[in-house]
């Protein structure tokens, strides 16, 4: 008896738990500092740089990388690609947690977080793109939450509620695609207001299209990437169906990602052509832009294509991780790096270590919740009471 107790106590102190614990502790301290001493005490934000890492990474990257939810559910329920069905619940969960974390991070960044509901209930700034972003993100978070509940309801044994919500699947999927189209593109549209601050190679009338199309790429790649991670760490939670369909997901999504990346490459080229910005490519900013366009768009497209043609799952998985990184690079470029490019070095922004720590904290919280849900609720497996017939 005492042996078992000793084992369970030591198994709590896994490397992940220890690191996560430290990050969470740090996060709580920074929370205290943020709300007792203000943003200036924990960030490097300034009057020239009102938006920093929490917007550039937590918000912009977070929303892009949570796009797997609408992409996967659209593929399965609207396009009828049933063989990807096992990828839906993990994608919805990632989407739901992703957007929830965005809201969490927003509560730190915004000056008066308790006023976040104000644009909806007090005064609507309908001329602002940010108003539309807020409205769509809020509505979509609700959609994602409802789409997630069947898993929780199955875990809780609430059959009637679960069945009721499942009947909403088509409506929710439609709403998800519409709302995602709107807010993914609008997050890019935010920057249309600042042509004097964003470098010409990134500023374009097409930014909303760029952000929307790249969100699809992000979603497809995140499903593959996150799927490879869950397979590695939660394989024991995956049932036969999930394991069998996994390969189809990798090849199918990999092929789609390759093609969408090719299209995205072309529209980026069009962006330069329509404004005749070719001459910028020969500058050092141009070199960095080419790194993003060639290294993180063209290259992954070709690698995905090779992986699909050669049936090389490993190559596709690595390409997915690289593509996710590429999406992060693009969002950081638009939001932080190519933004205020004209300012002298003394006025440029680099995040305070506490901003980085807080962002890590937000991600860690997400991982902890993800782990709990995936190990207790039917995400990677079908609940025995609710098994669906499979051909």
């Amino acid at each position, binding site marked *: 008896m005492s042996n078992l107790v000793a084992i369970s106590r030591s198994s709590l102190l896994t490397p992940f738990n220890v690191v996560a614990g430290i990050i969470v502790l740090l996060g709580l301290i920074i929370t205290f500092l943020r709300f007792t001493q203000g943003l200036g005490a924990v960030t490097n934000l300034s009057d020239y740089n009102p938006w920093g890492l929490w917007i550039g990474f937590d918000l912009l990257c977070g929303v892009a990388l949570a796009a797997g939810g609408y992409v996967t559910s659209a593929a399965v329920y609207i396009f009828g690609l049933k063989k990807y069905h096992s990828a839906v619940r993990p994608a919805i969960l990632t989407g739901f947690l992703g957007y929830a974390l965005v809201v969490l991070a927003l509560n730190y960044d915004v000056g008066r977080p308790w006023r976040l509901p104000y644009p909806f209930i007090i005064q609507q700034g309908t001329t602002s793109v940010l108003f539309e972003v807020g409205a769509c993100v809020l509505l979509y978070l609700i959609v994602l939450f409802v789409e997630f509940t069947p898993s929780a309801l199955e875990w809780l044994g609430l059959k009637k509620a679960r069945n009721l919500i499942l009947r909403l699947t088509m409506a929710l999927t439609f709403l998800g695609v519409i709302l995602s189209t709107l807010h993914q593109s609008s997050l890019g549209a935010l920057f249309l207001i600042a042509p004097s601050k964003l470098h010409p190679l990134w500023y374009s009338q097409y930014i909303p299209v760029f952000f929307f199309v790249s969100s699809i790429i992000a979603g497809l790649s995140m499903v593959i990437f996150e799927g490879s991670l869950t397979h590695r760490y939660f394989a024991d939670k995956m049932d036969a169906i999930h394991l069998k369909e996994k390969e189809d997901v990798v090849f199918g999504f990999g092929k789609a990602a390759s093609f969408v990346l090719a299209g995205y490459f072309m529209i980026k080229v069009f962006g330069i*052509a329509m404004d005749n910005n070719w001459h910028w490519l020969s500058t050092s900013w141009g070199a960095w832009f080419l790194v993003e366009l060639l290294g993180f768009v063209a290259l992954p497209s070709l690698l995905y294509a090779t992986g699909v043609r050669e049936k090389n799952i490993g190559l596709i998985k690595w390409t997915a991780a690289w593509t996710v990184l590429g999406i992060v690079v693009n969002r950081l470029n638009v939001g932080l790096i190519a933004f205020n490019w004209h300012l002298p070095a003394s006025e440029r922004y680099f995040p305070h270590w506490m901003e980085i720590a807080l962002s890590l904290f937000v991600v860690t919280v997400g991982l902890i919740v993800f782990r709990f849900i995936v190990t207790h609720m039917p995400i990677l497996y079908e609940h025995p009471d609710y098994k669906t017939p499979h051909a």
Partner: protein
Amino acid sequence: METGFLTLQDFYTFTKGVAYLLVVVTLFGLAGYWLFLNGRDEDDRE
């Protein structure tokens, strides 16, 4: 503004011209890329 363009008309004529060329490249390019992507599947089927 490019020093080469005297009028907005000139600017648009040039950029739209380049864009039309790119349109042709895009259409053929993407079609060919799709065939390339599916290449091995076609071979395997035979």
